[in-house]
């Protein structure tokens, strides 16, 4: 129960690189000598991971002609023109895709977090018949390959006359087995049993105890569930690809894919695809950079001890 609460107040999670990352066990004796091998290895890894992002940043500044003629890491002159072209493309359908993605990911993650919080809390705090069975069954969902789900999900949605609708992409992604798993760990670690008991003695109903006592305690963990699910929905391709036909409802991943597909016939679209990809990546990266300040990446793997 310590980490979820202490991590939040820990002054330096991510703000001062290097020193603050490790727990205090690090020997201070030879703190001044730099270990070159791991440092360089990590920097090479970082460079590899940043390379495509750097490339797309540069490429997005090039006009269609420059893209194929100048050295790739030379900035071009067409960035604003590219954005204008992208915004003008089919009456700004790109921004509609971005809004759709934001809706699917934001709203979907919110609902998902709520469901995970309720289930995780119930599984961690109560002892009842069928607890482990329910948990295991929910968790088994993680093992279900998306393909065995997506095709019949589409057929069932079509039967219910709901295929090609916003709901058809939103609903199947609300239940996240991993979210339930994480929420259970966080609830078990951050909501002490005697606090719940005390709430009962004060005459609080179970719902009120959950909402006003347990929920605030679980909040740092729930932020993680939200982020995890936001990324999962934002990155999802298979489900919208199968469910949607009307490109006004496309998320940005699917939209860019269709744009790239047309681009193989008309290379002029390539600059739009590149600019669109950059603009689609920026919000998530910004989200992570901002959130780094008060949230630790480690929580993503269910870390509750430190």
């Amino acid at each position, binding site marked *: 129960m310590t980490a979820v609460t202490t991590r939040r107040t820990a002054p330096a999670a991510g703000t001062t690189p290097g020193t603050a990352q490790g727990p205090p066990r690090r020997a201070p004796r030879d703190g001044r000598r730099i270990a070159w091998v791991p440092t360089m290895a990590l920097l090479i890894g970082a460079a590899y991971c940043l390379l495509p992002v750097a490339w797309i940043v540069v490429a997005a500044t090039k006009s269609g002609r420059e893209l194929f003629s100048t050295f790739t890491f030379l900035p071009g002159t067409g960035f604003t023109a590219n954005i204008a072209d992208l915004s003008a493309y089919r009456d700004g359908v790109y921004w509609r895709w971005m809004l759709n993605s934001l809706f699917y990911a934001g709203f979907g993650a919110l609902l998902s977090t709520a469901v995970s919080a309720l289930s995780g809390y119930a599984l961690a705090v109560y002892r009842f018949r069928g607890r482990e069975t329910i948990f295991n069954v929910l968790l088994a969902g993680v093992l279900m390959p998306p393909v065995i789900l997506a095709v019949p999900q589409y057929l069932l949605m079509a039967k219910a006359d709901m295929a090609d609708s916003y709901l058809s992409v939103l609903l199947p992604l609300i239940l996240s087995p991993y979210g339930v798993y994480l929420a259970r760990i966080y609830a078990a670690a951050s909501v002490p049993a005697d606090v719940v008991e005390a709430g009962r003695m004060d*005459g609080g109903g179970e719902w009120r105890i959950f909402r006003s006592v347990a929920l605030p305690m679980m909040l740092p963990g729930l932020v993680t569930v939200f982020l995890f699910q936001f990324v999962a929905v934002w990155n999802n391709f298979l489900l919208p690809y199968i469910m949607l036909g009307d490109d006004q409802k496309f998320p940005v991943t699917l939209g*860019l894919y269709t744009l790239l597909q047309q681009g193989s016939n008309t290379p002029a679209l390539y600059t739009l695809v590149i600019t669109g990809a950059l603009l689609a990546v920026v919000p998530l990266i910004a989200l992570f950079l901002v959130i780094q300040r008060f949230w630790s990446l480690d929580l993503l793997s269910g870390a509750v001890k430190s």
Partner: protein
Amino acid sequence: MAAETSPARGARRAPDAPETPGAAPAGPGRGRPAPGRAGRRVRGAPYAFLLPAVTLFALFFALPIGYALFLSLRKVEVKGLGLGKGARSEVWAGFANYRDALSDSELLASAVRVLGYGAIVVPCMLGLALVLALMLDAERTRLSGFSRLAIFLPYAVPGVIAALMWGFLYLPDVSPFYYLLDKGGLPQPDLLDGGPLFVALANIALWGGTGFNMIVIYTSLRSIPAEIYEAARLDGASQLQTALRIKIPIVAPSLVLTFFFSIIATLQVFSEPTTLKPLTNSLSTTWSPLMKVYQDAFIKNDIYSAAATSVVIAVVTLALSFGFLKTVGSRSNQGETP
């Protein structure tokens, strides 16, 4: 957790119990019946809390799986020319769809391709993730906060966009690699064809997945108690020895976990090859098993064989991942489950 059991106990004896230890301070009028009501509420509460999850599971997991199983045993029978109402009807097919799926050479070929792809991705990704996690955990590493974030960054990039970015970097016309090879007068391999295509696709998965796995492993490295390192230091163990003899064995369970999920994800590969397809002719529409299912279901409109194929893929995936867990699980008992 002892406290969890007390409401139930209280509930059972509440109606006539003279004293209920929990509710003692409350007045007699309010205090006595309260535990009974609370107890009943408590007993129902967890089920109420779980209702949304269970409902969603039934609707969007159980029902589709059941429907897929059902469809996989059905087929369409065409009477006469197949024209007019009632000429096409759905009938039981037995295991015919499975027989067809298992003897489908295209499916087999796609399975072989994906296994080859997985043989590159999974060991490289987890090896790299482990090494980087150990480096992050090593002493006196500089800029590790920056590196950690940078390596994790691709996690926030959708697979489609990752494939798109790398796809352009593989295109000779726009890629800086080809530019440098050209300037250096070196041979320029076609990354989007034949053997290199596997490496090109594997690289996208490697780029996208290493960071997340690194964090998972790094998290469990950081949970190793300090005394163990102190003991190792006193014994004169070097950093490398500490890593090999202490750290890796201790993080083995999280390695198993990441391996498990990597296998599942790899066999399901869909968006990356689908995205790269417009850039090359070497990627067939049935390159991976999932693409084949999509092709069967939506291009050929044969949902029955698509259902059978997806059941086969699911079963093989689960068998492979559990087979792996079983062989490894016997050696490490420290599971990650709570």
